[in-house]
């Protein structure tokens, strides 16, 4: 088990290396630089800045310097928020993004699988159609439509919740972002659960339970666990989708998380911050996929590796 985890983590290293290299050179060959402001800086100031940030060295040297500092866990100084290092920015932004993302995922899992299971058990009933229509809507309506509508309804018309801002993580401020982020995931998970549950309910081992006269709660116990497998496999892509969604949500609700930093950083050519975000996201995806595989193996004895 421990060996397996170590092996998986080691096998992720080449991928990470490719990501780092690719994004490093992609950014540097692109036109524009971090100090190309609308009003050009004085040549002297520019030179100074470039020296401080080591942009005057040859590209390969910059690359090696960057790799070296990465090995020490240092993501370098931010080019835009010049008083901060990328590590410092992340130390503040990451917990915020994680909290919203994790809560949204949790909500989506619980609500989505409950709705999906309900629809599967009452297949072709009004409840089923309602859930499936809602799910299709949830998948098709983009996050950036849901967010302003929620703002309009709960923020302005009813004035129950604040329109945006983080306010040091007050729960009232996080309801709308979490809801926005969770809605499409609820929809997807509900559809997945319904489909797999319907298939499980038709399977031979459920027929066995019924032939043994086991009551509904046993049928549920067996079918939910089997139906959970595709949902668990979906969690990897779901985490990636949440990170994408966080870009929108954090922008609309003015939340100082990773997603918002990324867009700002990209627009401002903040090389190190962009790199840092890309690396961070890649690491998170790798870790999350590992966790998903472990959970899958825990649920399904057939893939256990002993």
């Amino acid at each position, binding site marked *: 088990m421990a060996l397996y985890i170590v092996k998986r983590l080691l096998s*992720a290293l*080449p*991928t990470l290396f*490719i*990501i780092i290299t*690719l*994004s490093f050179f*992609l*950014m540097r060959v*692109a*036109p*524009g630089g971090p100090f190309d402001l609308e009003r050009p800086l004085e040549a002297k100031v520019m030179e100074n800045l470039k020296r401080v940030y080591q942009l005057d060295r040859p590209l390969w040297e910059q690359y090696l310097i960057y790799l070296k500092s990465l090995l020490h866990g240092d993501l370098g100084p931010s080019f835009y928020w010049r008083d901060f290092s990328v590590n410092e920015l992340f130390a503040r932004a990451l917990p915020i993004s994680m909290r919203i993302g994790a809560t949204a995922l949790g909500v989506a899992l619980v609500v989505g699988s409950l709705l999906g299971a309900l629809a599967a058990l009452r297949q072709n009933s009004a409840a089923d159609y309602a859930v499936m229509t809602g799910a*299709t*809507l949830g*998948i*098709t*309506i*983009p*996050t*950036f*439509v849901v*967010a*302003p*509508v929620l*703002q*309009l309804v709960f923020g*302005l018309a009813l004035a129950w919740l604040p329109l945006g801002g983080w306010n040091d993580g007050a729960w009232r401020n996080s309801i709308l972002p979490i809801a926005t982020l969770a809605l499409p995931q609820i929809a997807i998970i509900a559809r997945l659960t319904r489909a797999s549950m319907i*298939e499980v309910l038709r399977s031979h081992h459920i027929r066995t339970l019924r032939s043994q006269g086991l009551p509904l709660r046993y049928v549920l116990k067996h079918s939910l666990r089997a139906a959970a497998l595709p949902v668990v496999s979906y969690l990897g892509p779901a985490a*990636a989708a949440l*990170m*994408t969604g966080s*870009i*929108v949500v954090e*922008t*609309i609700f003015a939340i100082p998380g990773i997603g918002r930093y*990324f*867009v700002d950083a*990209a*627009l401002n050519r903040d090389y190190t911050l*962009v790199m840092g*975000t*890309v690396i961070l*996201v*890649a690491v998170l*995806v*790798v870790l999350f*996929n590992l966790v998903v595989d472990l959970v899958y193996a825990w649920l399904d004895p057939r893939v256990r590796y002993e």
Partner: protein
Amino acid sequence: MTAIDGAQSPPSSPAPQGRSLWSDARARLMQNRAAVASLIFLAFLALAFTLGRAITPHAYDQVFPDYVKVQPSLKPYPLADQIGPALDRIVARMRVQAVDRKIEGDVVRMTFESPRPIDERLLAYFERSDLFHPARVVERQEEGRRLVVEAPIERRLFLFGTDSNGRDLLSRILLAGGISLLIGILASLVALIIGVAWGAIAGYFGGRVDMVMMRIVDILYSLPFIFFVILLVVFFGRNFVLMFIAVGAIEWLDMARIVRGQTLSIKRQEYVQAAEALGVDSSGILRRHIIPNTLGPVVVFLTLLVPKVILLESFLSFLGLGVQEPMSSLGVLISDGAKNIQGASYMLIAPATIFIAMLFALNFVGDGLRDALDPKDR
């Protein structure tokens, strides 16, 4: 029964046609009311996006400064209460005094006075306004210090209202819808071509080829791709081609996996082994057995991919990284609308409704195709 008879004379009676799986699937699809309605709706949309723009009275990039953010209306503009203020503005610009004005049907009749003779070229202000046709001098009095002028009112229809620049929203939606659909289809085709080729080759040849090719897919999978797309678009500028290459490049991974899985399972089917036993070569097996049998899932995935791509494009547009003015996509319009949600909510409602209806229909068609092609309960 004898060999010679059969070989020499062609079969006498024409053999009846059987029901192929495709025609079975078509029949099942036609029984699916939601899918058929969606198909009709999509056909209507496609028609509207291509031909509709020719019918709408306004060009998609025509700006009406006098009609910024006007509400959708079945009645033609200008409304009665808009004419007065517009005339006031014109009079103010002409620096004359209006002593009398009458609105008779579609014509405004005004009398201007000024201490000095009035330059008739000033009447061009009527023409510049979006509300009136060119004005005409009916009567000239007091050596040109008093003019009686008639200006026909120009009626304009803004069924969907106008946007914050005063452009006809209907025309823009038709343009944007067309572009969104085009991006959706083109990017899906990019994904289709790369994905099918990659997956079929990996799956059919198997072994080391498969291992290397799928390892590449795995690595690409774990890249935070959306971030790369954003990087690409930010750093290399926003253009149409880059857009669907970027989007297509993300989505081919899924396609490759599906096709590979499908190919692997078909390769194990006995009919492929039978073809090998008959001595059919690789290209014949791919052409006659593998590709026709992978087609079903691929078609289904393709129909479900188009809405996904449209969503992705709209996401980029929302970040301001998508299609650029004066062109537009539904994502651009929706994000405009979201910014103007207070006061001009129709700017969100109209494009969002079309967008959602379109994606809904595409999803229904995809689901319908899946049920038709893969009938589990038969």
